[in-house]
């Protein structure tokens, strides 16, 4: 089983099309919608967990891209500003996927973008606002 967490952006002209269900029907993929919203400019934003055979996942993504959907992995959209993180650990208790956890060796907070599901809980819990989520910023600009 191959799993990826993706950020999908739907241009305004296709937000009314039922595209995601085709991933299950035509490509035998299992999806879990972690977040979905329509932005003020009518663009759609979705965070999706997609699992299945690797080949099917890549075919499914090809299909989405052909329909005009922009696809990025969550890891590309979320980063920690290491210059300002004070490694307190406040985020570690709130992170549901253990993407943020304390390294027992160094006692520093480790961030593993591959494990992040983009829930954004850490963003406001971080006392120094070190977590940066690009799709949130883009939302503010549209």
């Amino acid at each position, binding site marked *: 089983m191959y799993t990826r967490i993706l950020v999908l952006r739907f241009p305004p002209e296709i937000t009314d099309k039922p595209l995601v269900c085709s991933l299950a029907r035509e490509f035998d993929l299992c999806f879990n919608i972690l977040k979905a919203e329509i932005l003020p400019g009518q663009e759609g934003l979705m965070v999706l967990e997609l699992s299945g055979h690797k080949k099917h996942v890549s075919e499914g993504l090809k299909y989405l891209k052909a329909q005009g959907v922009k696809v990025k992995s969550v890891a590309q959209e979320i980063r920690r500003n290491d210059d300002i993180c004070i490694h307190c650990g406040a985020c570690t208790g709130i992170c549901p996927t253990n993407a943020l956890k304390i390294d027992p060796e160094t*006692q520093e907070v480790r961030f593993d973008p591959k494990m992040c599901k983009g829930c954004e809980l850490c963003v406001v819990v971080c006392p120094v606002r070190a977590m940066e989520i690009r799709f949130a910023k883009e939302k503010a600009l549209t």
Partner: protein
Amino acid sequence: MSKYAVQKSIQEINEKIKKGKAVVVTADEMVEIVREKGEKEAAKKVDVVTTGTFSPMCSSGAFINFGHSVPGIKASKVWLNGVPAYAGLAAVDIYIGCTEPREGDPLNKVYPGEFLYGGGHVIQDLVSGKPVLLEAEAYGTHCYPRKRLEKRVTLKDLPFAQLCNPRNAYQNYNCAVNVTTKTIYTYMGTLKPKMGNANYCTSGQLSPLFNDPYYKTIGMGTRIFLGGGIGYIVSHGTQHNPDVPRTEKGIPKRPSGTLMVLGDLKGMNSRYLVGVSILGYGCSLAVGIGVPIPILNEEIAMYTGVSDEDIVTQVVDYGLDYPMGKGKPLAEVTYKELRSGSIRVNGKEVPTSPLSSYARAKEIASKLKKWIEEGQFLLTEAQAPLPTVEG
């Protein structure tokens, strides 16, 4: 006949420091030394143990004199980057407190509030050399006729700026949980319902007052690492309460001693003074403090050998009990358990997370160790003791 087999004075230790011969270790290194060699040998070998803590510390702020302009002003209201400072001191003297939010902040009107900028952030900006907008209003007098002043100031321009924190370095603190069915937002961080997480906030075995639990070396006049520069303990802090239940080794099991500290802001570093925003609660300042403990005898060596497994704190419900002033703890846990990532409370496994940076506390203890080893930092004698209890 003295009651101690090993006896050293602070003067003797300072002579060693000046010659570059003092043996300095961090508090976590001392745990192993005492364990392996015993208290007496440890006291013979080690001269100074350095401690460290880095955590949001409310009850922090700075006294600032912003200098007279022409014509002069007797400021009655002052803002720094829009954050109100207390001006009822003298014509151009103010105090900026770290928990003061920027004027116009939505606070908790949109719940939970984010409190993105406040007095702690102003202090961080000043220390990092950024210009800060100072605005002042006055009613005008014959000697100080000006009624309004607006200027950009940097820390360098200010004639006087002293960090003066009335309550820092809490000796132990609660571990917070939430037993209610809704998420709550507290100064102990965001607490998930039904004991979904537990937050704690001291640096444990590295924390200054755990290493001198009866304040036998720490007192008024003790020179310390403060915010990356030099500071002093000037008094016991507000809410200082040494008279709480203690373990056999004298470690308080509840919040107890506190320190009031002072130091020149101009010598400090914004890596160790960081403005923080606590969701739904307010803003504050994370302060870095390191206190050197002179190993005068084997009793002090024993105290500085304290480890996370010797330190106990109470688990307190911040959903119902704490707001209603009910002190009954749900459980007692050690810092070793807290640091392991989870604790058991009433049969439930609860994940733990710190609010205090152990990594940076260690960095502070190591930095202070280096200063002392290099002869840049001498120890001072306490000029008066802090209020304490019999050990």
